[in-house]
């Protein structure tokens, strides 16, 4: 067993195991550090930057930073909260996220974060990009309007040989997460549901199944995202 080490988050004395990722170590201590591209069981990528904290005064992503003895971490400062809110706002304006008609509403991590960070109108102009809906696969629909390019599906949804059902296409602002046509043709209903569940937004949706969970029973209907960690 790894050695227990001591560290501080926002002045609170914390304990965890040496080398554990900071997001998980904080969670053990009842502290929520928001994440979006991170997903339990997948190797962290640190791409969305929403988990940015200050470790000993320097910015770092908490999902990729191992915790060490004596670290002093800032998490809930006004500066960091505003930076995180800006990232959320940028994600909203760079896609077409119309929560009122999205079936992921209530289960969407991006929406839940926007509520947590009290996003009202974004400070950035909406891009309103012209995005496609790929409805050509038998089990799922990939709505590019809502994709935030977090790569969770690429990293997490694989067949028995380890081939991913999803892949990046293009670069920069034209980047897309696309579906492997051949693999998707054989996709099981179970795998399709896993893909929908791993997607933090409503970009991957299982065909012909929307809104079967009533309002009130959805993931974030009763408590804000992160409160399960904080109230633990």
């Amino acid at each position, binding site marked *: 067993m790894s050695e227990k080490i001591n560290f501080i988050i926002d002045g609170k004395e914390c304990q965890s195991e040496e080398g554990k990722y900071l997001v998980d170590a904080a969670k053990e201590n009842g502290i929520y550090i928001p994440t979006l591209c991170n997903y339990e069981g997948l190797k962290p990528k640190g791409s969305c930057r929403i988990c940015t904290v200050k470790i000993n005064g320097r910015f770092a992503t908490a999902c990729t930073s191992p915790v060490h003895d004596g670290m002093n971490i800032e998490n809930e400062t006004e500066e960091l909260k505003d930076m995180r809110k800006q990232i959320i706002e940028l994600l909203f304006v760079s896609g077409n996220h119309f929560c*009122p*008609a999205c*079936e992921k509403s209530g289960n969407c991590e991006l929406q839940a974060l926007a509520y947590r960070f009290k996003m009202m109108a974004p400070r950035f102009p909406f891009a309103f990009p012209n995005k496609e*809906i790929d*409805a*050509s696969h038998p089990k799922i*629909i990939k709505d590019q309007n809502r994709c935030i390019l977090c790569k969770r599906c690429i990293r997490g949804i694989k067949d028995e040989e380890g081939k991913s059902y999803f892949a990046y296409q293009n670069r920069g602002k034209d980047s897309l997460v696309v579906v492997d046509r051949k693999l998707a043709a054989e996709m099981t209903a179970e795998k399709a549901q896993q893909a929908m569940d791993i997607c933090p937004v409503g970009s991957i*949706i299982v*065909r*012909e*199944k*929307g*809104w*079967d*969970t*009533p*309002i*009130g029973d959805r993931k974030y209907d009763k408590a804000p995202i992160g409160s399960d960690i904080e109230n633990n």
Partner: protein
Amino acid sequence: MGRKITIEPVTRVEGHGKVTIHLDDQGNVTQSRLHIVEFRGFERFVQGRPYWEMPVLVQRLCGICPVSHHLAAAKALDVIVGAGMGDGLTPTAEKMRRLMHYGQIFQSHSLHFFHLAAPDMVFGIDGDPAIRNVIGLVLTNKELAVQGVMMRKFGQEIISATAGKKIHGTGAIPGGINKHLSETERDEFLKGADPMNIDKMIDWSQAAVDWFKDYHKNNKDFIDTYADFPSNHLSLVRKDGAMDLYHGVLRAVDSEGKKILHDVDYQNYLDYIDEEVRSWSYMKFPYLKEYGKQNGWYTVGPLARLNTADFIPSPLAQKEFEIYKAYTGGKPNNMSMHMHWARLIEILHSAEMMKELLNDPDIVSGELVTKGQKVNEGIGLLEAPRGTLFHHYEINGKDQISMANLIVSTTNNNQPMNNAVNQVAKTWMSGQTEITEPMMNAVEVSIRAYDPCLSCATHAFGQMPLEVSLYNANNELIDYKRK
């Protein structure tokens, strides 16, 4: 010198519209028009979206009666997913949707009568505009105002319990419903603390009908002659001719009561109904094909429903229906202001239907969804508070919407509203040298009778600025007033 009067925007209706009235050199009204000046584009931008999004997406057309759009879309999609033509749902799904719908009719009619229309009756068309509103009603007739507020609240709570939210819920899904009513919720509606229980709602609904009948007795001239003109009437009726606000066959009668559309299956509505586009309004003019653009227009809504139905299948409302019908000797009622009377009888019917459904064990248990062989086209109709609502969708082989046609209730009432405006303008404005606020309100009252949802959108109700501009024959502004 000819003049043109513009009333913009029209107040105490849902959405934005304006009225123009043209006067000739002698000050006689030559032409009046109700213009709908908003453009929404829903039929176009839903194309490409997955079909199961429709009930949740298109209900955003409206913040007052979203349930109507929610359910009409769901009914159309029931057909697409092979759940029958309105008769294939599980008993639980059918009854939960009906409960949601009657809650919706109850709250929307209450909103219209107590908040929007009653001030004109209590204070008079020419009453002081400062108090001729719901606040004035609260100050002078608190009991009536409180009843209106609480009745609306009760309807909204029913919607919330069946759809998940008071506005823009998600209860209806293609082929069914996504929840039961809990026993706690049911018991609360049935036996909740006074006044929030269904028996009180029925009492208050009956009292509202009685209030109107009393008012009518003392104001016969106003109620009977105001915007009274012959019209065809169209609505859904149950197969046996009963009033049914959720499902049925399409029936139309002419102003004398002769059936001109014989209980047809609404899946074939395009065989019977067409829409005309006129250059001066974004709202189309529907008409019965067989009778043409000139004679085929019709009225929908409470007045039309009481004219087409043979009876109302709930005892108290049926009793009122008989009194109402006796007033015109069993003939169709063409008096626009009787729309309020008809609306109140429907409030009573909705309350009775809610009680019946709340006592039905199917709403707290049973299968929620049914599906069958998918097809690529579906049509869903129901009787929204303001009248017959049409939703028609086609999907492509990838489950995406390829065509949508929505004929909303207010669109169906386009021609009757224009006729009402014209008649009232002629009565109140012809030969007048000055256009006064009561005269402008008189025109609005005729529109309000139809409870139009001009944008069928989410708009705050309330006092909006009313502008009147007078133009001469050369379209030059010669006078302007604003309140």
